[in-house]
C-alpha cells in the first residue's frame, strides 16, 4: 500500500500521554534559587551524576529543599544555567587531540560571555567544577583569544602574571606568614653578621 492510499486516522492529541518534563531546583551560595530542566542538566557531568544518585521523583523535586551548590554564587550560576538551557540536548564534545584545539564560539555564547573578567573567571571556574565540557571549551577559548598577537609584556598585563622577582617575594612572604619566627631569625642572623660574629649559634 502506498503512502497516499493509507487510511487516515484522526488522532486525539489530548489522549496521548505527554511525558512531564522535570525541573530540578538548585540554590547558589548566596541563596538564589534556579529551576533547571533535566535535559539541560545533562550538559554538566557533575550535576547529572548528582541528580541520578539522588533519584528524585517529580514530587521530591517540588517538596524537598533545593539542591545547594555551595561554591558558586547566583550571578555565575545564572549564566551557567542559561548556557545549559540553550545547549540542552546537544552532544558533549570529545577532545580529538588536535593542536591547537579547534573551538568556535557561537553567537549566543559570545553574548553570554560579554562580561567583565572577574565574572568570566568565575564562569570558567564553575564550568570546571560542574564539568561542563563545552562551556569550559568556549570560555577558555575566550581567554586564549586574549593572548593572540600579544607580546610577553602585554601578556603579563592581560593575564596578571607576576615577574620572577614578584613571585619570589610572594613566596618569601607566604613562608614568613606560615612561620613568623623565620623573619626574626633571619634579621637576627643579619644583625650578627653586621657585628662581625663568626657563628650564629
Amino acid at each position, binding site marked *: 500500500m502506498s503512502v497516499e492510499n493509507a487510511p487516515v486516522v484522526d488522532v486525539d492529541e489530548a489522549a496521548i500521554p505527554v511525558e512531564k518534563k522535570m525541573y530540578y531546583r538548585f540554590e547558589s551560595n548566596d541563596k538564589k534559587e534556579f529551576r533547571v530542566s533535566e535535559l539541560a542538566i545533562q550538559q554538566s557531568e557533575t550535576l547529572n551524576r548528582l541528580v541520578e544518585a539522588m533519584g528524585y521523583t517529580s514530587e521530591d523535586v517540588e517538596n524537598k529543599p533545593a539542591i545547594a551548590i555551595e561554591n558558586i554564587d547566583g550571578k555565575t550560576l545564572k549564566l551557567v544555567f542559561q548556557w545549559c538551557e540553550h545547549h540542552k540536548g546537544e552532544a558533549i564534545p570529545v577532545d580529538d587531540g588536535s593542536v591547537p584545539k579547534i573551538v568556535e564560539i557561537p553567537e549566543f555564547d559570545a553574548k553570554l560571555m560579554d562580561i567583565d573578567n572577574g565574572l568570566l573567571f568565575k564562569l570558567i571556574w564553575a564550568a570546571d567544577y560542574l564539568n561542563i565540557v563545552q562551556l569550559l571549551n568556549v570560555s*577558555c577559548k575566550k581567554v586564549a583569544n586574549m593572548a593572540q598577537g600579544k607580546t*610577553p609584556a602585554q601578556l603579563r598585563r592581560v593575564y596578571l*602574571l607576576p615577574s620572577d622577582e614578584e613571585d619570589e617575594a610572594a613566596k618569601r612572604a607566604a613562608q614568613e606568614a606560615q612561620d613568623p619566627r623565620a623573619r626574626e631569625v633571619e634579621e637576627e642572623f643579619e644583625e650578627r653578621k653586621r657585628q662581625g660574629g663568626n657563628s650564629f649559634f
Partner: protein
Amino acid sequence: MKFHRFPHLVQREICSLLHPFDLVLLSFCSDRTRRAVKKANKNRKHEIWVSGIKWYMSYSFREMNNFKRSFSVYWNGPQVCRSKFYIKIDGTDVGICERFRQGEIYLEDCSHSLSMHKYICNLFNVPEEIYVKSNQLECELQSVKRSYLWNSDSEFTLDDLERFYRYHPDQEFSEVSGKLALGYDHYNENVFVVRNLISRGTIRSIWRSFKLFKGENAYCEDTYMSLFQIKYAMEEWMKRKDDGLKSMIFKPKEEYDVEKTRKKVKEISCGNERKQEVYPYKSM
C-alpha cells in the same frame, strides 16, 4: 584575569587552545609561567622538526605524517635588537627582542639559536635532539638525529645526499621523498648511511637499494621489480657478512603486476625480521 589562579585543568585547557607561538611567548613571561606551560603540554603527542640554518630556524610540529608549521626563530643582531629581555637557559642569558611579528621570534645572538632550540623542546616536552625537515641538503645544523628530506621541484643528486649523510653520521632515522638524478656512470655505494630509512620513490631499483643503503632497516616504496633484480639482490646480500642489515622491505609501484613474477608477493623481506611497522611513519 589571573592565569595562575585557574585550576591546572583550566590552565591546560587554555594552553591547548593557544597556538604554539603564543605558548612560547607566554612561557617568556616568568619562570612560573614557563613551568605552567610545560606542565600543560605534558600530554601532547608530537615531534618538533626544524628547517633552515643557524640564523633562521623554522619550527614545525609533526603528528604522524602531518607537519604543521608553527613559528620561526631568527637571529636579528645586536644593532637591530635594541629593546630586549633576557631568559636564562642552562646558565646562559639569552637575549630576545621585545618586538615580535606573528610567528617570529628574534634572538640577539646567533650562537644562542641552539639554546633556544633546547628551550623550545623542553617547553613542549619533546627530545632535544634535532629533527630536520628540509628540501635543501646543505644543512648547517649539527647533531641531526632524524631527517625528512623532500624534493618536489628538482632532483637529489647522489653526491649531495652522500655529503648530507656524511655530515650527519649518527642519524637514527631518515625519510627521503623525491626523485633521484641517477646517471648510468654512478657507482656510489653506502650513500644512505642511517640506521632506519624510508625511501619514497627515491631509490627505484632493488639491487641499487642494497648498494646505496648502509644501516639496519630500510623501507623502499615505488620500486621497480623484476624477478632478475630480486634474485640478483638476494645473491648480493647473501655474499655480505656482518653488514648490520636486518631488513629491507620493498613496495612496488601500484601498477606492478604481482602475478607476472610467478610468486604472489607484494612485499619481499630479506633477513631475519619483517619490519611491517616501518610504514607508515611511526615515532620510534
